[in-house]
């Protein structure tokens, strides 16, 4: 990289200035700047501005308002419940098709279906649940007319918290199956056999060996599921039409009209959301590193 004269043209080509190769990256960097970084930056900046553009912490402070806190809380609750439910049930399903010795055809069937179902979300998913579990839905209807069980009189409501959770689970569960199946495939038969030959019971094997080994993957998958539900807008929008005060719904309403009577509060809301997601992704990466060390 110094000034030794070079006669060979080919060799000179490889001695472009240090930033030469970066030129090839320029189109992408410009795109990322314009459509990924700038929008984020503008929200970050907007969160710290008042209506006339002056710097302020007021928006951040307003996040502490009861109504906004409660909407964060309910969003976190929906995400946590569906992440936990998806993790536990998805794990059991994945276990059934990997270590549970079910026929191979069922395994590929479930994996294919999970690929579809985890992509089947948003408006059509909401419709499907309305048609099934809504007031007029098929399951509601069959339960009432055949079994005499009135779901809605029993307190169930599809357009409420638990209804939303049930609906979200439809993409959370298959997502978990897809994520955790490789980890379970990585759980070696020899671990179980070694533990058995050392005198451990099935319970002791799960308690001391299998669960601790799988824990990082389980946790990181759960975080992924949490973020997946936390950012979801379309499903909730189509299902509850804004009845539930989820943060994404609130931001959407803010975009379409100044429902908060303070445009900059909307930015703070979005910033709060990004903050939660950043926490998720950091925890996810840390856990991933650990589990990849254990399960080669």
């Amino acid at each position, binding site marked *: 990289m110094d000034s030794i004269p070079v006669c060979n043209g080919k060799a000179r080509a490889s001695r472009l200035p240090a930033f030469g190769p970066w030129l090839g990256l320029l189109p992408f960097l410009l795109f990322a700047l314009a459509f990924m970084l700038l929008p984020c930056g503008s929200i970050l900046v907007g969160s710290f501005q008042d209506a006339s553009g002056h710097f302020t912490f007021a928006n951040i402070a307003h996040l502490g308002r009861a109504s906004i806190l409660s909407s964060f809380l309910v969003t976190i609750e929906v995400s946590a419940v569906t992440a936990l439910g998806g993790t536990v049930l998805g794990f059991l399903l994945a276990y059934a098709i990997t270590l549970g010795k079910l026929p191979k055809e069922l395994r590929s069937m479930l994996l294919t279906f999970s690929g579809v179902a985890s992509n089947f979300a948003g408006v059509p998913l909401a419709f499907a649940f309305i048609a099934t579990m809504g007031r007029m839905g098929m399951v509601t209807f069959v339960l009432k007319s055949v079994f005499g069980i009135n779901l809605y009189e029993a307190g169930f409501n599809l357009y409420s918290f638990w209804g939303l959770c049930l609906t979200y689970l439809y*993409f959370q569960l298959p997502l978990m199956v897809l994520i955790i199946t490789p980890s379970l495939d990585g759980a070696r038969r020899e671990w179980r056999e070694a533990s058995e030959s050392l005198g451990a019971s099935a319970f002791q094997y799960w308690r001391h060996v299998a669960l601790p080994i799988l824990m990082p993957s389980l946790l990181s998958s759960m975080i992924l599921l949490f973020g997946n539900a936390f950012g979801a*807008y379309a499903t909730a929008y189509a299902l509850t039409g804004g009845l539930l005060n989820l943060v994404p719904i609130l931001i959407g309403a803010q975009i379409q009209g100044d429902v908060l009577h303070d445009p900059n509060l909307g930015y703070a809301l979005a910033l709060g959301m990004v903050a939660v997601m950043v926490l998720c992704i950091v925890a996810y990466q840390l856990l991933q590193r650990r589990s990849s060390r254990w399960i080669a």
Partner: protein
Amino acid sequence: MIKRRGWSWFWFFLGALYFLVPLLGTFLFSLRGKRGALSFFAYSRVFADSQFLQTFSFSFKMALLTIVAGIALTLPTMIWVHLRLPKAKPILEACSLLPFVIPPIVLVFGLIRIYSGPPFALASSPLLLVAGYIVLSFPYIYRAIDAGLRSMDLRGLTEAAHSLGAGWGTILFRIVLPNMRVSLLSAVFLTFSIVIGELTLAVMLAWPAFGPYMALMGRDLAYEPAALAILSFLLTWGLIGLIQFASRGITGHSTGLGGTH
């Protein structure tokens, strides 16, 4: 051992029940469009609606644009990084995580804030929508192409081609692309399935796309939305099926996880 398998069956059936009941329920529901009889009436009403065709074809066009522009932007960049600038890989990696950190609703909020006024008044141009869709589908395109690049020895292949006298164009079109057919196909179908029914960006940027159309139907009608749900499920199934068909026999090639919800 037998007990263990019994539990496996139990959980599998429970899962199958949860997955299949809504589909079956929705299908039956969609057949009740005509009072007193099961019929495909709701479906014919859907197809007869001129809005259906208009919005669907709009979203279809957006999907095509997103696919072409997204791959045109990503593929050369990734090949370049792979060959010449490996140290820039973390940047791409980070960008592929970004859509997870910034949910669509936040992304569109930021986009509107920047591009609704001068100096870049783009908000009324479909360009902004396509750009947003590229951001949303970037993780899937990135992962698919990355898997494809990693499955072949790109450096070895290009060096071999160079030493045989091939130029860059020949290398790209005769060697790299044919070897990446499968990954590119899965990127294409995944992007398509994300964009075709997308709601958040379309609704916020006020485009007459298929997602907002479906949402609107849901507000006013009962049986047509069920028919739409079944149709979209079949569409998703078809797209994922195409990906799995294209990538059959290739190990370690997973389909993309999750779309925009």
